[in-house]
């Protein structure tokens, strides 16, 4: 088993935990935490692929940095959206705020 696969394995663990949490959590904040896990796994896999193969090293590390920037932007926006949802519905539980089927 190559060390590249070992690092990919860590990324896959983060992916699985993130998906599990994203579906199983009931509040928007819990889902935000799961999304951060997913993005962490993506960055780890990209850097491992760039570092341990012949691919361009700089490209891999900068991609990971861009993912971190996107994660920061996403967390900021989600915080604002959570505040708006809380003001409008009085709750951030997904069952309370899904009004499409009513």
């Amino acid at each position, binding site marked *: 088993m190559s060390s590249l696969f070992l690092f990919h394995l860590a990324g896959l663990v*983060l992916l699985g935990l993130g998906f599990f949490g994203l579906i199983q959590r009931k509040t928007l904040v819990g889902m935000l935490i799961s999304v951060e896990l997913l993005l962490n796994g993506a960055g780890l896999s990209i850097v491992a692929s760039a*570092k341990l193969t012949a691919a361009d090293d*700089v490209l891999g590390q900068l991609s990971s940095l861009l993912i971190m920037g996107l994660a920061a932007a996403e967390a900021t926006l989600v915080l604002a959206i959570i505040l708006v949802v809380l003001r409008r519905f009085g709750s951030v539980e997904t069952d309370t705020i899904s009004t499409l089927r009513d």
Partner: protein
Amino acid sequence: METLAFFAYALYLAIIVGGGFVAVTNPDLVRALVGLVAAMFGVAGMYFLMNAPFVGLMQLLIYVGAISVLIFFAIMLTRPPAGGEEQTPSTRRPMAVLAAAAPVALLGVICFKAFKQTVAVPDETGIKELGMGLLGTYGLAFELISVVLLVAMVGAVLLGFKRREEA
């Protein structure tokens, strides 16, 4: 030396698995956040193990330093009177396991079969090369990410404004 690296890898993997498990299952969101921070520390350790110290430091600075504080604000601002606990319906759990296992199994098989490692021990890329790449080859991406961050910040401030009541 090889075994030492393997032990470090196993330690970081244990931190990631444990922290991530707490992050997705603990009903108390503050404890879940602590689990997330632990998992982020584990990922940073993996970056150092891969000889990418700059990305590792950025991981600590951005994720552990900034994003966790942001999520903590989200938890504190939305805390219900009962106290931040959330109960998960047990019917959703099997579907969540299925939805997590399917893509992981597929990607795991692909990673195991398709990608072959060509570098045994990665050598470090200096910060100078990263900076040259950021301002040279990948300059457009660098500018675009700053625009995205600016738009996200302004959008968050706009969303946060209370609309004035119509008189």
